């Protein structure tokens, strides 16, 4: 289906990443946002609060992030595309209910404009240290999808992609932006509504007496209903059967949790990476978000000096593009991983490379971006 023209501000804009996220959500058909103010993500909620009443949406500022995430799941089951937006401390508070969204298979989007941590850390300055929390933050086994934009333009696009993935796989999708991208102002081109493709909610056509709310289709994803349709279903965070009823047994656990994991993990098409000059590369810089842009001058400098350097940029960071990394590892000398933390996606790279090439981490504690010179030095080190 195509986007509703009512919500699409077609044209050229000069926006920061946070505002572009808000426009992406509205273009994607999101009409419910429950959030709690937190720097550096507040501009998303502020823009939505201003825009929603003009496009038929509801914004509610909740009392905390636990309530925000719970309301987002309730709204998803109420039949509306819903989201919340936060940063590190709030993201931590949302974790339990992100697990609930995974368990209830509620399509929804969470934007985390990452700042420096741990704890209160650096509220106004960037970080990329919530990447593993995005993957593993809620207790138990489950899978999510996470994306990381590296420009305001991509904020707009990635949020739409996030909504589409959440509807297609019925999973919470996390947009892992960072303070630099969130507060960076650039040209954003918003296309015409008819050029924006949206994945519609997977509502069932079965009558109530034939419908089982958690019976998966061929792609392991069940069809949905919304509350009030007369199906009188039960939805729980407890381990449940296809009927949605709680079942306290290892067999039910195995069947349900395996499906929640495999509907994402076995789906080879959930990949979105960008490759620059990797065909002949001997060194590939792997990064995402703002770090991928900071790496560009270093890569250019290396190329100038005759080092065949390239870039693999993750747009979908979770699930991790294992095949792509394995394939490149067989052809290159080294991966240089640039991220604003002390090694998170780096260990995923090491795991997939499995000794096929060198892996070098260029860490950074957050608060400011890498010095491209440090990345350049790592590239030189890689070809030694």
């Amino acid at each position: 289906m195509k986007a509703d023209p009512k919500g699409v501000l077609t044209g050229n804009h000069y926006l920061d990443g946070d505002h572009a996220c808000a426009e992406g959500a509205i273009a994607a058909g999101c009409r419910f946002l429950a959030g709690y103010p937190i720097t550096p993500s507040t501009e998303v909620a502020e823009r939505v609060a201003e825009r929603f009443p003009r496009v038929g949406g509801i914004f509610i500022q909740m009392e905390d992030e636990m309530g925000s995430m719970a309301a987002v799941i309730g709204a998803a089951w109420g039949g509306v595309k819903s989201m919340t937006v936060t940063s590190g401390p709030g993201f931590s508070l949302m974790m339990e209910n992100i697990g609930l969204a995974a368990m209830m298979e509620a399509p929804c989007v969470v934007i985390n404009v990452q700042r420096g941590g741990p704890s209160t850390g650096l509220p106004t300055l960037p970080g990329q240290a919530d990447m593993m929390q995005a993957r593993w933050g809620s207790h138990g086994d489950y899978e999510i999808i996470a994306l990381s934009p590296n420009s305001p333009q991509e904020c707009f696009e990635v949020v739409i992609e996030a909504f589409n993935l959440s509807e297609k796989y019925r999973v919470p999708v996390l947009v892992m932006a960072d303070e630099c991208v969130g507060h960076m102002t650039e040209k954003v081109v918003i296309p015409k509504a008819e050029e924006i493709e949206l994945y519609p909610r997977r509502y069932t056509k079965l009558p109530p007496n034939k419908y089982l709310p958690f019976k998966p289709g061929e792609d392991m994803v069940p069809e949905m209903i919304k509350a009030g349709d007369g199906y009188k279903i039960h939805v729980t965070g407890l381990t449940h059967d296809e009927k949605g009823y709680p079942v306290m047994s290892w067999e039910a656990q195995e069947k349900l949790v395996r499906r929640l994991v495999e509907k994402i993990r076995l789906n080879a098409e959930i990949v979105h990476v960008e490759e620059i000059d990797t065909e002949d590369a001997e060194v590939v810089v792997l990064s995402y978000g703002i770090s991928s842009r900071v790496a560009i001058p270093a890569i250019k400098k290396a190329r100038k000096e005759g080092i065949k350097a390239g870039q693999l940029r993750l747009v979908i960071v979770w699930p991790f593009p294992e095949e792509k990394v394995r394939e490149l590892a067989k052809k290159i000398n080294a991966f240089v991983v640039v991220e604003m933390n002390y090694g998170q996606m780096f260990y995923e790279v090491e795991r997939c490379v499995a000794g096929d090439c060198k892996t070098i981490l260029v860490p950074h504690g957050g608060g400011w971006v890498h010095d491209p010179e440090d990345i350049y030095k790592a590239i030189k080190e890689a070809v030694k």
Partner: protein
Amino acid sequence: MKAVETVPAPEVIEHPMESLLRMDRIPHIWCSTCGIGTALTSFAEALKRIDTPLEKVCVVSGIGCTGRVAGYVKLDSFHSTHGRAIPFATGLKLANPELKVVVFSGDGDIIGIGGNHFIHAARRNMDMVVICVNNFIYAMTGGQVAATTPLTANTSTSPYGNFEQPFNLPHLAASCGAVYVARWTALHVRRSAKSMAEALNKKGFSFIEIICPCSTLYARRNKLGDGLSLMKFYHDNSVIKHGADTRELDIEFQKKIIVGKFIDRERPTFLESYNNGLKQVLKDKFVPYGGAHAD
């Protein structure tokens, strides 16, 4: 030979609550003499008396013994996380305003861990009915002290008695802006059903507290006898006082319990205020949320 006389099949009489319960989930998990089933019976009775069609009534529960109610009602029902039933219900209601949303959960869930959501939903006058079964204890986890445990009562984590002042729930609800506030005990099945029906037929944030026996933990630890003794205690010690000043509704250990309907007033709901306020400011630029059926 005489033909065998066919015995007519006995007339199958449907249980009066069968259409409202998930009979395929019975037997339930509650202990015998627990009051939650009684509160649920009152709720089922109330559902028969309301204007809203049942397919538009949703129940949201949190975690705990009463949190299991969502699993037994034959309605769209959601069993959410501990303390978050009210915000979950908030999302559900705002997404689809034609729903009648009921939060049915326990004191530990709604007031203990979820207290912040409770006061804010009441302040906003979020359109929902909150039924809080108060058994004075965290029962599902084995009888720990709660924000509602009366002073001196023994629990597994207050083995020498509770020395923290408990909440007065009707007063809390009323002070935060609830438009309907009532308290009954599990003994008052008809009165609580009437209150629930009134609340279900009313707009805004309604709160009903049901004092409920937990004979397995609370009564046993405090040597209060069995379920029947507790019901007898409610019978002898409940005082019906409609319109009572909510400041005077504290519950002391094994003392009189004041019950009744304390508050029944009108105030614009969250959505009414939201829509009217925006309409006034934005005029024809305001596009009201069309509900889940908009697209």
